[in-house]
């Protein structure tokens, strides 16, 4: 028990003294996940908006697959990207395996279905309400997509936050394609896994505390965005 308290004390020390190792890992994690979420948002908004508005064969099937992929296990996302990027894979020539870019790609694969499926649902709900009005105005399909995305902006923000929460907390995908290389591809989650197995509980705990704080902050913003939307009757 005293060991644990000591570890906890050391962990807090690492955080308040802005320990350079800890912050290097923290910054890399945030950089990777933020970049992945930006890319996944652009893809997810486009895919979700298009699936809600355009009618084409296979639309329902694609929507169903997208929703199912929301629960894609990170290790599987990692495995798929690993196969693509490995030396014998189709994108092997790019030599991206074990780089932060590889981790970004893996997280994009993981997060795009989440943002895409939530965007499609948000747009579909709005379209049910707006359809006749927009067609009465003579809006083109692309204009309808843009209108729905903007009017669903609060729900899209929550989708993005959910995607970020997923990306920053996952370990399987970044572990497989990043390799947890010190100073190169070591993120908070992979570092926690490694340090724990090495018995270096203090650093693991410090990272855990930071990760938990980020998760709480993301959820607090979710609630705040929802409240703001309700207050403006924009929900």
């Amino acid at each position, binding site marked *: 028990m005293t060991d644990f308290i000591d570890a906890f004390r050391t962990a807090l020390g690492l955080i308040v003294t802005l320990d350079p190792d800890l912050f290097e890992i923290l910054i890399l994690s945030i950089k990777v996940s933020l970049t992945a979420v930006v890319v996944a948002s652009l893809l997810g908004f486009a895919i979700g908006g298009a699936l809600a508005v355009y009618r084409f064969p296979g639309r329902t099937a694609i929507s169903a697959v997208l929703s199912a992929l929301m629960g894609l296990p990170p290790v599987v996302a990692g495995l798929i990207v690993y196969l693509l990027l490995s030396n014998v894979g189709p994108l092997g020539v790019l030599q991206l395996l074990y780089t932060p870019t590889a981790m970004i790609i893996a997280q994009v694969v993981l997060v795009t279905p989440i943002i895409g499926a939530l965007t499609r649902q948000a747009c579909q709900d709005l379209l049910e*309400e*707006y359809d*006749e*009005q*927009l*067609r*009465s*105005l*003579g*809006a083109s399909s692309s*204009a309808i997509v843009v*209108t729905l995305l*903007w*009017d669903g*902006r609060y729900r899209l923000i929550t989708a993005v936050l959910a995607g970020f929460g997923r990306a920053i907390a996952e370990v399987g995908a970044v572990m497989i394609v990043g390799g947890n290389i010190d100073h190169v591809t070591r993120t908070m989650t992979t570092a926690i896994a490694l340090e724990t197995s090495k018995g270096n509980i203090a650093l693991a705990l410090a990272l855990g505390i930071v990760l938990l704080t980020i998760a709480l902050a993301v959820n607090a913003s979710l609630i705040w965005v929802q409240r703001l939307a309700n207050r*403006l*009757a*924009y929900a």
Partner: protein
Amino acid sequence: MLDPTSPLEGAGDRLASPPLPVELKGLGYETGGKRVINALDATIETRRITAIMGPNGAGKSILLRLMHGLIAPTKGEILWAGRQLDRPMAHRQAMVFQRPVLLRRSVAANVSHALGVRGVERDKRAICVGEALRLAGLEGHASTPARVLSGGEQQRLCLARALSLEPDVLFLDEPTSSLDPASTLAIERLLLDAQRRGIKVILVTHDVGQARRLADDVMFLHHGRVIEHQEAESFFGDTQSEGARAFLSGGLVL
């Protein structure tokens, strides 16, 4: 804020030129194996307000949507001054629905969006928005989120948005069915004003008093057919059909 006395481009002074007559020829609409509109023939010639009346399920809303091109007839055709409804013609129409459909944006942005969709240039939109809101008495609410407005204000905004498009033809589907008398009066004033500017108003209403106040001619629908269509004065004074007589006397029309 716009100076209401200043001469404004577009909106206020423009005289609409609706493509009349509207000919409904052997019109039929079937959905789910049910004939909602059945061999309907009618011609609307008056430039003034036409009211479509009838019991629930008579096909009034469907007829309005057919004329506006939101749905396609399964039989027959609709001709506007001899022409089928094509895209340019559809752009000369606007519609106000029974339940106000407003975007999750400010009052001004709702009007601006509609203008944008219809291809009005960005720098011209502001002046049109100002004029539309002034007309509807909503100029003080320009930056209010549209969906926090009262029911009456929301419907006024929908009407203002439709009018900002400078339509030649304006459809309304029971626009005041859930509004209080003051809000209803405000809407009716806007409609009479629209009519004075030459806009052809076609209105579905359940409200006999409203039809009396506004309509120049009344089309009475029953079971998807027009069973009576004549000038309002004679429709209310000398009702011909059994169904319409029962409807007007408050009886149950089955």
